[in-house]
């Protein structure tokens, strides 16, 4: 354990990572993740989220640049970093015809640092049926099994690829509860990709928006929710132009805008003589949707 304490403080670092596919290039990506941070990787389909996570897990070798996990270079041929990485993806490679229990037994013998106690607690918590073949498990139970396998050996970096996709609300809440508890100690770093933007509110400290293979914006959730507001007001002027506004709806004299700089917008409205001004907060997932909808423009201005 002592050698672990002397290792670099950064949980994961991507340096100029580039991976090319026909018609698509991921990167160059530069990203660092500190312990205790939960970073949500948000982006449309095909933005490169899964490839980024696969490169960080050492399952895909990038053409340029690389990744480090707690200072150890990530590459399939190296094994030092693996103890620190727990990966949950859509496909986890389990022996489908073996039961969940037999798969976990196999992994327990394989993975150094495996804690039977930790695994038992998670199994009980998730009420995971150990006697069913993996191929017969529901999607939710397969995700739970993957989480048990990924958490039982105590990795300090969790890479989660759409962990709650396709899960019913109850299972999703269970999975999020466990992830939240894991990250609560402030020692684990989590990078997860998601389409379910409502998960962001529960888990993420920071967001990284990935579009066309590039990180177009990385920002803190608090920072976003401090500045973004939905503002409604009454103003007779039809040609009103407001800066920092990303969406503007109007029905006669009634206006509703979404602004990424509430202070500046309110100042403008007061100068224009707007009446009945009402300001409401936006949730982080609503803001994320706006950023994804507006794409590069909003992201660039935001950054």
């Amino acid at each position, binding site marked *: 354990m002592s050698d672990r304490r002397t290792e670099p403080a950064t949980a994961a670092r991507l340096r100029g990572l580039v991976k*090319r*596919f*026909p018609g698509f290039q991921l990167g160059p990506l530069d990203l660092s993740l500190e312990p205790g941070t939960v970073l949500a990787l948000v982006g449309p389909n095909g933005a490169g989220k899964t490839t980024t996570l*696969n490169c960080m*897990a*050492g*399952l*895909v*070798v990038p053409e340029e640049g690389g990744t480090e996990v707690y200072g150890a270079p990530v590459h*399939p*041929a*190296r*094994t030092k970093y*693996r103890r620190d*990485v727990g*990966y949950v*993806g859509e*496909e*986890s*490679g*389990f*022996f*489908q*015809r*073996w039961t969940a229990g037999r798969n976990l037994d*196999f*992994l327990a*013998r*394989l*993975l*150094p640092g495996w804690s039977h106690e930790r695994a038992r607690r998670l199994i009980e918590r998730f009420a995971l049926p150990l006697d069913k073949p993996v191929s017969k498990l529901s999607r939710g139970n397969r995700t739970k099994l993957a989480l048990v*396998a*990924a958490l039982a050996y105590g990795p300090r970096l969790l890479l989660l690829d759409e962990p709650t996709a396709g899960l019913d609300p109850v299972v999703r809440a269970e999975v999020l509860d466990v992830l939240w508890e894991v990250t609560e100690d402030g020692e684990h770093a989590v990078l997860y990709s998601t389409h379910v933007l409502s998960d962001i509110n529960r888990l993420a400290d920071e967001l990284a928006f990935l579009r066309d293979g590039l990180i177009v914006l990385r920002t803190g959730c608090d920072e976003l929710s401090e500045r973004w507001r939905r503002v409604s007001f009454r103003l007779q002027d039809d040609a009103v132009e407001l800066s920092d506004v990303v969406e503007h709806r109007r029905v006669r004299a009634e206006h509703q805008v979404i602004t990424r700089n509430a202070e500046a917008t309110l100042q403008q409205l007061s100068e224009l003589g707007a009446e009945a001004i009402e300001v409401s907060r936006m949730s982080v997932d609503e803001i994320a949707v706006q950023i994804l909808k507006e794409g590069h423009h909003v992201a660039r201005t935001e950054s």
Partner: protein
Amino acid sequence: MWRVLKAELMYFWPWMLGGLGIAAFVVVLLSVLVRFLEEGEGPPSFVIAMFPIIAGMVVSFIAQGVRAEERRARLLLAGPFTPRQLAGVTVLLPACFAVLGIVAVAPMIALATLITGKFEASALPIVAGFAGQFWAYAQLGPLAQESSAAHRQQRSTTAIAGWAVFAGAILVLAVSGFFMQSVSGYLGIATAIVAAMGVAAVLYQRRTDFTR
């Protein structure tokens, strides 16, 4: 590597047992039928030997397909294994099933001999030739898979080299068929097996994507 190989063998053991069971059923049926129809004759020993040998080859193909479908590399690369070790498992697994099929030839021939009362010792060199040929075909599976993977991963030169070895091995096996009972024939088969295993292992280690 041996732990993983053992686990994979245990995982696919029901398929192997099933394959050998079907082979035994066919051998018994064939022996009984031929004995009654031909009045005291039995099927040739090399025909009897073919069934367990083919069973081994088929199971090795099934294992290869199932491992790819279940994306086993993802699971194993979470553990302390290098691509070199996983390459070893990839090429040794078909070899294990092929050898198990070959080993099962002895009890199958014994079974047929019990039913028909006839044993052809002279057929053994032909059986050895067939066994080698089918083992080689089983080893060509991983080679084809890794050549395709190289092509998918935009490693054209590697893919071409892999397919060239694949074609060369097929050619060697075809020519060896004409010299089935000679040392040169056996050497040709052995060369094809070793080349297929070696090149498939090298291609596996050079993968840039272990997600499939």
